[in-house]
């Protein structure tokens, strides 16, 4: 109950501050199993793409949150686990654990996920090179649809080190699905996926 209220509150807040407009260009919002992958510039990316999805898809889609940042305080970990139903991923790689394991679990259970393939937040105009995770997941789950998304303007809402967010309109543009081709090399696929995200900037 409290999580639901918090969800409503966050949704209202995000809409008031950013508009959280979703623009579907390459595919319609549809309840099939998907991996949404987007550029990453701010911690608020997660909130924005969550808010931009329609209600039905929001409950089916789980965002991925960096364990070290999103579990640091009880409030953050409560929000990510109870409200967003997020999947935690640790960024510091330990030898004995595959960082993709929680994602593989979620996907085999039929959930859709939101992924930021850059791994960390970028500060440049263009996104950084994509990490291999997206390729590995695409290889393992060929039936899952890969939808690129471009998140616009979020870094202006709350730059690093600031506490109070500023109202600026933001949008999430969803593009045409990208599929792994037969025998496609990892580097080629990652470059193509990154290009699909960048191309949405000017749609």
């Amino acid at each position, binding site marked *: 109950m409290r999580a639901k209220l918090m969800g409503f509150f966050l949704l209202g807040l995000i809409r008031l501050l950013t*508009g959280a*407009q979703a*623009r*579907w260009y390459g595919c319609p919002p549809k309840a099939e199993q998907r991996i949404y992958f987007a550029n990453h510039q701010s911690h608020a990316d997660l909130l924005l793409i969550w808010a931009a999805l329609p209600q039905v898809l929001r409950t089916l889609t789980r965002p991925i949150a960096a364990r070290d940042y999103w579990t640091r305080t009880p409030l953050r970990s409560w929000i990510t686990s109870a409200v967003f139903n997020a999947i935690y991923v640790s960024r510091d790689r330990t030898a004995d654990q595959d960082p993709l394991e929680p994602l593989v679990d979620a996907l085999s259970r039929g959930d859709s996920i939101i992924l930021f393939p850059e791994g960390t937040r970028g500060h440049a105009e263009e996104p950084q090179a994509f990490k291999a995770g997206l390729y590995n997941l695409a290889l393992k789950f060929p039936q899952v649809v890969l939808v690129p998304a471009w998140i*616009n*303007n979020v870094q*202006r809402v709350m*730059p690093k080190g*600031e506490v*109070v967010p*500023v*109202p*600026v*309109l933001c*949008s999430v543009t969803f593009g045409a699905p990208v599929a792994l081709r037969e025998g496609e090399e990892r580097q080629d696929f990652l470059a193509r996926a990154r290009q699909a995200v960048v191309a949405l900037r000017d749609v």
Partner: protein
Amino acid sequence: MNQYLRSLSATEQVGAMFLFVFGCLCVASVVLLVRSLRENGNDTEGDARRQSLVHANGLLRSSWLMVIVFWIGWLSGELGATVLFGLVSFFALREFMTLSPTRRGDHRSLVLAFFVILPVQYTLVGTRHFDLFTVFIPVYVFLAIPVVSALANDPQRFLERNAKLQWGIMVCIYGMSHVPALLLLDFPAYVDRGAFLVLFLALVVQTCMLVQHLATRRLRRAPVAAAISSSFNWASWGIGVGVASLLGGLLAGITPFKPGQALAMALVASIAGSFGHLVMKAIKRDRGIPNWGNQGEGVTGAGGLLDRVDALCFAAPVFFHSVRWYFDL
């Protein structure tokens, strides 16, 4: 009819006015609905008709929205009206700031604009501190904003960034806040009829814009400033302002003015409004966008909120000050 209307109390008169306006909108909606049922051929003429129908629908939708906003503002009293127009200001400023690139150093100034200046300005309106209200932004805020920006330690394009911020505040907060101020302005022997003054202003300004638009389509004169507006020319501007002023003179009955005064006030308001629209167009051209709102034209195809209220934002302060000065309120 006239005798009967005069015998009503102020509240009943304003209520009757809203009834009348809602009635007009209902008629317009029905007319458009009937027209949308008509078969349009697949030729270019049919396409043009469809296009004009879409355009008219958009216009009607924003008129409905505007009237409902005014109505709720009037219903909810002084506090409600102030909060409501405060929200309109907030959304307009959000659109403005989205399309004016700011740097990281502007963050604190933006926070100040949205979360301090805007509430303070509307509080001043709501509490009728009109003397402080008129100078708060031009004097205090315009001197305080550059200080905050300078403290952010970023000299790049300093003047330009501050100018953008100040323009946004001027149009979206200062201009807009004069609309509820009109609602709260106390004329002797004109108590509780501020809603008529707002209606007078909105009608005059919208008529000016509409007539100017129609005249431009009929006359097809060469534009004065082609790089900024492909439609603005002196002939249709004059027609628009003239018709709006005449309408203002005819509407003198609902205002505290005599017909001559109403004509002059309408003239002032429509000149300010139409030039304000031109100025906002110049800002849009500078940003390279056709409309305010999310990335020019959003998925819905509707323009932004600021496109609808920009003329009002320029006309309201000028109208407010000339009224206050002339009647010595």
